[in-house]
């Protein structure tokens, strides 16, 4: 099981958790398992076709998954996934 860090805006959809455990050998599998367990997250980060929205960044440890193999990027048990939508707040 790898660890997924949940951004503040998705925490309500994850039952208030800041991190959750999810299984899977690739970014795509881990996110699918996350969305199975927390369908409200899937509703916000996945398109109707089940693809990740372009506004969602996913990092495996400190690297952008888009610059690796995107959803096919391998994920190990010790890896941390971070879901990162942009934040606009400044005031």
């Amino acid at each position, binding site marked *: 099981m790898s660890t997924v860090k949940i951004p503040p805006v998705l925490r309500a959809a994850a039952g208030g958790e800041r991190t959750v455990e999810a299984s899977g050998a690739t970014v795509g599998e881990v996110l699918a398992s996350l969305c199975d367990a927390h369908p409200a997250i899937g509703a916000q980060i996945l398109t109707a076709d089940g693809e990740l929205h372009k506004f969602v960044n996913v990092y495996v440890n400190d690297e952008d998954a888009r610059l690796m193999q995107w959803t096919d990027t391998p994920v190990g048990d010790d890896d941390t996934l*971070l879901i990162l939508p*942009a934040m606009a707040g400044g005031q």
Partner: protein
Amino acid sequence: MSPSYQDLLGNAREVIPEVEPSEVAPRVADGTGPLIIDVRETAEWDQGHLPGAVHIPRGFLESRISGTAPDLDQEILVSCASGQRSLLSAKTLHDMGFTNVTNLAGGFARWKQNNHPVEVPRILTAAQRSRYSRHILIPEVGEEGQMKLLDSKALLIGAGGLGSPAAYYLAAAGVGTIGLVDDDEVDESNLQRQIIHTTDRVGMNKGESAKQAIAALNPEVQVNVHPFRINRDNVLDLVSQYDVIVDGADNFPTRYLLADASLMTNTPLVHASILRFEGHASVFKPYDGPCYRCLFPEPPPPDLAPSCGEAGVLGVLCGVMGNIQATEAIKVLLDIGDTLSGRLLIYDALGMTFTELKVRRDPDCPSCGPNADLQLRDYEAWCAGVGSHAGAHA
């Protein structure tokens, strides 16, 4: 019998030729003159000196001359106030083996009387030396760096949660000109975090309110209040007047507008954003690192991008993130250290953790990529319409 002062001068005159200011002035003017060593004390040097002269106080002449003039046959003209200390200094150089040393007859006083050009070095005043003494002690800043800050201009977008601490510390640091863009007025609900404002200034324009606070803290800072919203019609004119942009905006259209304007004017952008207990910070150096759109190609929809007014923000978080911005702005202005360019710093105040992510330039970036067709657009419409989702107002 020991030689008197007059004896010493006389002995020196026997071996050191004197040069009248009018003889050497044309060569100084066209850059073909000798190396000029000014041996006066610092306070005298600070009042003005010959153009291009090098300052070595007489007490340091023997120890420092080889660093300035490694060639013993180099032509050297020594200068002081009236031509006597320089004569003895020139004799010292002669005794050290320098073969082509002359003395400026009548010294700087005669040079000035003859109306030859004078360079007055820029120095900090006594009051500035005192105010910025803790900066001056830092080798990476020093007097030179402090003067650079005094000459610098920072544009802050928003005098709110991030802009308040950033403006306060940049003003304290002596950043000479601070521009504040904010069309909003101080509200009581701002005061939990926007520390540059005060209860008795509720209702005042935030830029004006911040200007009053800055004037009380550091009156020599020039504050330009821009009490309007930044848009594609005014952004380039505004941004091009400044050396760095500190983005404390509260909405995506403004953030993407600033990101593109930063690239178009080649002005570094210091980014931060905040929500609840979490802050993001980075630095976007145009074409020298990733830009905002390399990191976030598109804004999220409104329900995934609530404003602090909708979702809340810990007041102290603004202080941490605004001061990270001020720190990065100072580093950018002084060109020191390693900025957050190429990195996104995420601060989670609840877990008290700092996480760093790598941010790389996107070769297909529509703003800074090689095939980008960069032009200002209607960012409100673009943010509302990108992808299949609608709206993105914080």
